[in-house]
Every structure is written in structure tokens, then in C-alpha cells.
């Protein structure tokens, strides 16, 4: 343990470890210092300067986010000098800002707006230095960039660099021309962007937002000729409440279902259903790959196999490791499986012309929008998913619908494609797909449940960037005898920074794993780029906890036991990895530029 030092903040004594910043020390004793460029997930920048404080004996103010707490010193966070400086700094930012707040997507959820209000800054104090003629980049299916609202805090740049190792964004030029830019200011859809949306989650203003599609959804709902089906991802139900006045980590599944119905959605279904289906297909794909490699010695089949349900991750590997796409599972993501099936299986069962079906996905994700628009995602003969919305857009729609959300009754998803298991629910948290897959694969191979208490495979849970586990396979059913006594090595990675580590090993030929789960976003989908803002480790932990509670509350907790899954194979798909599955549920990938 490092040395403890003591200092005084606003007259209050505080003891902290040496090296602690003034900001952290102040927070420890509940002294609130405003910040803009600071974000707990990111390295310290010290750019915005709104966190300045007075240190006794120093003429200059110190940025508390990047100044180590000085031993024995007195700090003042609320003097006239400090308040005046902060107010001027916020005024400066406002003078550089497009202040059409009323029409901004981030209106009422903007950190600059909050501070401007708190300091009651005069918008006319300074001349406007907002650059004229800035255009919004709407080239991407997922992310919009509006430089007129950028405060150049570089949170997005740090997110893209530190958390995601993508580096699609950079600070460019300098001085009055300094801006946040892609490579040569190229449109977002032309650069190495994975659409993960983590930058959007950390943008303090409306400079980076997801591209919004909710008006199209309202239009479809209002069109009597259209049959609107909506599916919601597992992590939406544990985060949506944050938009609607609930404590972080509250599960609102039942009310959410009712809300959708009240909004006029024709059929309220669950992405969890196709998450279960993904497990069946992916689990079988894994077993088949193992067989081909171990028994048939087929060198064209790649191990480790890596999950493919996170579209930010998929685009990442397409850009960064285009020569290793063979490691990706060919399974479509649950969203896209749902889309295809909604216009084939569902249409058939319900007797609806698929051309009249509008399939909407509510996702914690920005990349899902891009995924829905991939040209190959039309195996149903139509656009499989017509629109992908974020949790945030969905929360907004509920508000627009005028629903008294808190007083809505809880109801159940519709059928078919509304039934799901606990295994599907945990897809929302990092490690969840792995755990779900192991629950099913182990049962398929041995005929017994996984040897973990309550089926909870805790080794793959948690928040470490990369986690690994080994499972010894014993007592196989005859069909799977080749696996008898084998040790299955698996790994879980979340955040693309960690995905890169995993991939570097694979590229170097040193990977010891058979199966890897990768999620693009820190924490997995519960920390997705489409989730309510703000995000940080504590918020992600609470959402994760809610996910596991939802799992424990489910009567069925293994995908292959989902009765609707059993039914779809009996009535429609016939068998995992069968002809129909291949046509509808599997896909291929596209190598892209790394630079």
C-alpha cells in the first residue's frame, strides 16, 4: 500500500493515498467539482479546465482532475476566483457551441448544458466563434457527428483509442482550427469505424449521437397495412428504466412489453428467443468444428471459433484481421436471425405476407443499425430487419407515446418467438454467451447439466478484460466419444482493446483456446453504445447484476430446453446446421481495410 497523505479541502481534513488527484480526494468527502473532459473509464486529459480549484499559495488555479493532491496543502473549490474562472470557461465553451439546445437530441441530457445552467452563464458574454458552415456527417448507418456541438474534450478520441484500440477518431489541426476528425475528415462510413458507439456513450454533448430511426418506426406503426413486430435485446430491459425515472439496475421487462403493445406494435417478441437459437446453432457449429479438427484433421476448419453476435466486434475483425475471418462463427447475430425468421417462419405461421411485415429491433447497440443495413442481411427475400433502435430512442418513443410507464401493468411477450430462457438473458453481459453455450454444449455432449452450482459458470463472469476457463469433458454420450477426457479451453473478452489481444495471439498462432466470446463493448451489451447515458463501471455492474437476477428468475435456463426452440426445429428448421439453417441463420464476412 502506498503512503497516505493528508490535506484540507474546503476546510475539511481528508486522507488519501499518495498520487490521488485532488478531484478524487474531493469526491471522497462529497465535495462536488464539475468536470467535462474527465471520464472514469478513460485516462486523464486535463483539457476542459472546468475542474480548476485554488491551492493555497499558488496564484494559478490547478485542474483538479490531473493534479495530485498535495500533502499538507489547503484546497479551495468554491472561492470567488474559482467560480469566476469556471464561469468564464463555460462561457467560452458556449461561445464555440451551437446553442440550439431545444432541437438537440441531447437536450436535458447534456453536460455542457447542465454546467451552463449551474453557472447561469450569459450566452452573449462573448462573441460567437462557432465555425460557420459545419455540416453534420450522416454518412454512417450508426453514428452521426455534428462538429458544431463538439467541445473538443477528446473523450471520444480516448474512447476509440484506449478502450477500443480502433483509433478511428483523432484530434486534428490545432489552435482555432482544432477539431475532432476521422482520417482526413472522411465520412464515417468510409473509415475504420466499428460503429460500436462507445464514443456516443461518452460524448458529453450532442456532437456524437446515434443515427435515429424512430420516426420510420412510428410511421410503420401508424400504417394499417403494416404488421409491426418488435424484438428487444436482453440488456434493454435492465437499462431502459434509467430513461424513465428508475434506479439504475431496475428490471422493467413486463412494463416494457406492455408499453410496446400500447404504442401499437402488432407483435411484441423477444430477441432472447433467437439468442437461444444462436446457442443451438453456434454450439453445434463448435462441436462440428471440434470434430472436423480433432477427428477428421481438416485443416481448413479454424479453431478457436469466436462468437459473432456483436456487430461492432464483427466489423472490427473485418478491418483489423481480415485474414482471420475463418475463426468467426458463421452464425448471424440474434437480431439478424430474428429478422430473417420474422419474415419467413413467423410470416408462414401467422399467415402474413412478409412484404407487409416491418421488423424492428430494440438494441443496446449502435452497431446493430449498421448490421441491419448490411447488404447480405436479406436472406428472407426482404430487408431482414427494417430498423434498429437504441435503448435511448426506445425510451424517447415511450415518452412520446405519453405512457405513464411506472403505472403500466406487467405483461408477457407474444408468441411465437417470444419464449426464452435464462441462458438467452445473460447474452447481455460479458461472458453470457459463453456461459449459455457451455450450458447447452455440455448437456448435449454428456446428457448431464454443467457441473456448476445452479448452472452458474462463475469463471466466465466478472469484469476482467479477458477471462478464461477450462472444462474437462467426461462421460460423453457415444456420439461425442471423441471428446471424452478432452479439456475445452475457452476465453471471454470484452472491449475491443481486449479483442485485439486475443486476435494478436491467434494471428501469431499461439492461442490455446477452442472457443472465444468477444463483445465489442466494455461490460458486454449492458454497456453497449446504445444504452442510456452516462455509463461507468458502477452503472455497468448494476445492469449486469440485474441480468443475472433475470436469469435466476427464469424457469428454464438452458437454451435447448426452450419449448419454442424445440418447436421451430420440429416444424421448420429440422436440424441445427441443416439446409434451412444455413440459408437463413448463417452468414459470411467481408475483409476490409485496416488503415
Amino acid at each position, binding site marked *: 500500500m502506498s503512503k497516505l497523505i493528508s490535506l484540507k479541502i474546503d476546510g475539511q481534513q481528508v486522507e488519501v493515498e499518495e498520487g490521488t488527484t485532488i478531484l478524487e480526494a474531493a469526491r471522497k468527502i462529497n465535495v462536488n467539482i464539475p468536470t467535462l473532459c474527465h471520464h472514469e473509464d478513460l485516462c486523464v486529459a486535463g483539457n*476542459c479546465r472546468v475542474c480548476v480549484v485554488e491551492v493555497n499559495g499558488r496564484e494559478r488555479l490547478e485542474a483538479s482532475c490531473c493534479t495530485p493532491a498535495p500533502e499538507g496543502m489547503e484546497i479551495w473549490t468554491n472561492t470567488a476566483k474559482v467560480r469566476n474562472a469556471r464561469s468564464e470557461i463555460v462561457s*467560452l465553451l458556449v461561445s464555440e457551441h451551437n446553442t440550439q439546445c431545444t432541437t438537440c437530441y441531447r437536450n436535458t441530457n447534456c453536460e455542457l448544458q447542465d454546467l451552463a445552467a449551474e453557472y447561469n452563464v450569459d450566452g452573449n458574454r462573448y*462573441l460567437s466563434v462557432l465555425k460557420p458552415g459545419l455540416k453534420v456527417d450522416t454518412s454512417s448507418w450508426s453514428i452521426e457527428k455534428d462538429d458544431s456541438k463538439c467541445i473538443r474534450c477528446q473523450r471520444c478520441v480516448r474512447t476509440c483509442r484506449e478502450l477500443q484500440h480502433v483509433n478511428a477518431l483523432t484530434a486534428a489541426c490545432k489552435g*482555432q482550427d*482544432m477539431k475532432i476528425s476521422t482520417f482526413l475528415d472522411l465520412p464515417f462510413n468510409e473509415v475504420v469505424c466499428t460503429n460500436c458507439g462507445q464514443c456516443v456513450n461518452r460524448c458529453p454533448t450532442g456532437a456524437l449521437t446515434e443515427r435515429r430511426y424512430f420516426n420510420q418506426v412510428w410511421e410503420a406503426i401508424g400504417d394499417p397495412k403494416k404488421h409491426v413486430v418488435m424484438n428487444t435485446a436482453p440488456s434493454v430491459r435492465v437499462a431502459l428504466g434509467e430513461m424513465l425515472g428508475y434506479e439504475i439496475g431496475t428490471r422493467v421487462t413486463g412494463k416494457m412489453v406492455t408499453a410496446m403493445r400500447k404504442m401499437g406494435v402488432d407483435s411484441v417478441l423477444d430477441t432472447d428467443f433467437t439468442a437461444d437459437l444462436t446457442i443451438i446453432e453456434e454450439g453445434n457449429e463448435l462441436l462440428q468444428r471440434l470434430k472436423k479438427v480433432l477427428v477428421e484433421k481438416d485443416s481448413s476448419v479454424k479453431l478457436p471459433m469466436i462468437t459473432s453476435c456483436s456487430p461492432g466486434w464483427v466489423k472490427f475483425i473485418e478491418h483489423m484481421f481480415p485474414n482471420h475471418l475463418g475463426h468467426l462463427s458463421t452464425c448471424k447475430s440474434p437480431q439478424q436471425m430474428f429478422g430473417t425468421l420474422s419474415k419467413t417462419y413467423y410470416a408462414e405461421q401467422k399467415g402474413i405476407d412478409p412484404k407487409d411485415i416491418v421488423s424492428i429491433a430494440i438494441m443496446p447497440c449502435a452497431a446493430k443499425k449498421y448490421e441491419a443495413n448490411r447488404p447480405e442481411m436479406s436472406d428472407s427475400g426482404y430487408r431482414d430487419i427494417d430498423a434498429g433502435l437504441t435503448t435511448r430512442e426506445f425510451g424517447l418513443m415511450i415518452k412520446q407515446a405519453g405512457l405513464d410507464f411506472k403505472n403500466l401493468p406487467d405483461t408477457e411477450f407474444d408468441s411465437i418467438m417470444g419464449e426464452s430462457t435464462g441462458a438467452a438473458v445473460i447474452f447481455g453481459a460479458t461472458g453470457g454467451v459463453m456461459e449459455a453455450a457451455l450450458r447447452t454444449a455440455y448437456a448435449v455432449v454428456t446428457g448431464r447439466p454443467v457441473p456448476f452450482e445452479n448452472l452458474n459458470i462463475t469463471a466466465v463472469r466478472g469484469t476482467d478484460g479477458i477471462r478464461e476457463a477450462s472444462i474437462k469433458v467426461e462421460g460423453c454420450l457415444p456420439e461425442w466419444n471423441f471428446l471424452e477426457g478432452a479439456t475445452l479451453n475457452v476465453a471471454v473478452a470484452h472491449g475491443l482493446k481486449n479483442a485485439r489481444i486475443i486476435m494478436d495471439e491467434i494471428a501469431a498462432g499461439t492461442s490455446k483456446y477452442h472457443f472465444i466470446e468477444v463483445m465489442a463493448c466494455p461490460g458486454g451489451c449492458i454497456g453497449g453504445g446504445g444504452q442510456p447515458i452516462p455509463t461507468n463501471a458502477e452503472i455497468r455492474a448494476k445492469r449486469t447484476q440485474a441480468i443475472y437476477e433475470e436469469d435466476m428468475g427464469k424457469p428454464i435456463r438452458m437454451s435447448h430446453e426452450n419449448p419454442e426452440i424445440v418447436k421451430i426445429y420440429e416444424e421448420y428448421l429440422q436440424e441445427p446446421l441443416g439446409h434451412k439453417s444455413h440459408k437463413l441463420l448463417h452468414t459470411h464476412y467481408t475483409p476490409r481495410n485496416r488503415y
Partner: protein
Amino acid sequence: MANNKLRKVDIIFTPYSAAPYEILRLTMQKEKNAVIDEIIESGLRGRGGAGFPTGYKWRFMANQPGDEKYVICNADEGEPGTFKDRKLLVEVPRKVISGMAIAAYATNSNKGFIYLRGEYNYLIPALEKELLIFHEYAEKFGLDFQIEIFSGAGAYVCGEETALIESMEGKRGEPRNKPPFPIQEGFMGKPTLVNNVETFASATMICRVGAETYKSYGTDDQHGSKLFSISGDSPKEGVHELELGMKISDFVEEFGDGDTKAVQIGGVAGFCIPRKNFETAIIGEGNTTGGATMIFNSTRSMYNVLHNYLEFFAEESCGQCTPCRIGTQQLLKGIEAVKKGEKPESYLNDLIKLSRTMKITSKCGLGQSVTNSFVSIVENFREEMIY
């Protein structure tokens, strides 16, 4: 120095006819600590503008552990009105290189860079030749110290030592948060000593003439000689070596054109002294100085002067921190608006206040120093700002 009179001195440029690198050789016969003591004793302060006591910086560096330590000569001379470093590198490169080598010897550093501003690219061939010669002698003396030239690429802020280091690492030249200081974690995370060209040349000459002699020049607070880059309305433009501590009136008498109305001391980041203060202001007291001195006669519009400075700052700010990036633009636009009558005269007071906020909140010296010239020009030449 008595009477605050102007005195020319001849230390740095004085020819030294002994064998090349003789000063270095002799210095290396002394204890490392003794060399640092000598520099401390001389009272030498950094000659780039910030004025940190050089000897203490060296001692701090010597105390850093590690076998990879860097000495960087900051030749990113970008301050408008400054050109002394160019002259040193052209005329007495060996004194500069010797200073680096002495620093390396005293602080146990093994790798040196001359960070040369991109605009001085034409100096490289001659410097490369000098380095070849130096490396021969270094080997002869048993000094394990290699120097190479690192070429800047056009950014004033890279004169700030952490920005300089960032750019050497291939990044944008944005100043870092301090601590850690470069001495602790500099280039590639290793201890790094950054000194100005003139500082190294001065260190060499201190080792030559001794701290005692060196210290006898200058004031109690500012010892030794200082190079002044003199430009503007002066019949004697060029680099002049003077003792610190002279009255501006003496300076103006020597270097002005007889009609001097203001003197800018310390480049655009320094102060503008109006005629009425010539008798009282002393160069070297509270206003030092990288030595850039620009002289303006009565035909010059101080509005134009300030406007030119502010355009410079608004372009050369690295742009990362709010007060500097936006503040420089506001000051520039603000004086334009007052001049055009779009803002009342009283807006100048708001701008002065803003510049003072920039001083206490900006991340690095660039944003912190804008207020110097801004306030001194606006307060002393207020009518020129308005009419």
C-alpha cells in the same frame, strides 16, 4: 550591476582558440557533482524564457535512476522576434554541443537530440558536420554520448518541453499534464533534460570562466549575460549580448531609432513597455525573457501589433485546453469588434479579465502568457484600440 546601466559583454560569442572541445575535456576532469555545483553557483537560469535555475534541473536529472537518459537541446525557436538560437547554432555550434555534452557527463545521460525547428532545416548540413567532429572527440574523451538532430515540423507550442517530447514520440505536440516532469518521465518515459540552446552555450562558458566570474555579471537575481534578439525599428537589429538588469531607457537609447514608443520584451509572450515606463522598467526584473526584444516607433499602430500577436496565438495554440483555444480567438475577435464599434469600449475590460483567467487556468505557458502582451498593450495604448 550598478546603476542599471546597459553593458555589453562578450562571453558567449567570444572566440575560444584552444583545441576543439577543450572546455569539455577539462570539465570532464572534474567530479560530476562539482560540475553541477558550478552551474548552480553561477545562478544560470534557463534561457528559453521560463527561467528555471539550470543547475538544480541538472541535479534533479543526475539523481534520476536508469541507464537510458536523454539530453535534449531545445532549438525549436519559434517565438516571434527571437533568432539568437539560430545565430548560436551557426556561429558557435561547438559551445552548444559542449554544453549538451557537459550536461550529459554531469547527469549520466547517454543520448542527445538537438530538436531543431523545421524552419531551420537549412542549418542541418553544417550541424551534421559539427556532430561528426564532436563524436570523434567524445570517443577520444571516453564520453558515451551520441547526439542526433531531430527536425521539428512547424509548431510554436513544441517549444514547450512536454509538447516537444510528445512530437518526438510521433504524437500531436500537445503539452502534457505536469507532474510528472520530463526529468522524471520524458522522452519514451525516460528521464529527459530539456534546455535551451543558449542555456547550453552559457553552461559551456561557465565551465570556462568559472561561476564566480559569470555571476559577477547581471543583477542579484539574474546573473550573467543574456543574448538579446533585437528587431523592429532599430538601426542595430541583430543578436547582442548584454548584462541583465538594464533600464529600458538605456536600452532604447542604444538600440532605438530615436522615436521609440514601445518595447516588447520577451517576444509576443512577454510584455510591452510604453515610453512612459522606460525610466522605471528594468530588463531582467519580472519581465524576463528569452531575450526577444522588438522596438516600435511612433509610426506603428499598437492595435496592428496586438492584432498580429493574437492571430499568431490563435493559430499556434495547440487547441486542447479551453481557455487557450477559445480565449485567444475571443481576444482577437474582441479587439476587432471594439475597433469596429460593434462592442463598447468597456468590452476591453472584459477581455482583460478573460486574459487573466487564461493566465490562471491554461494548461501550459502558451495560454498563460497571452495576458502579458494583451494587458500591457491594451492598458497602455487604449486609445489606439478604440479609434
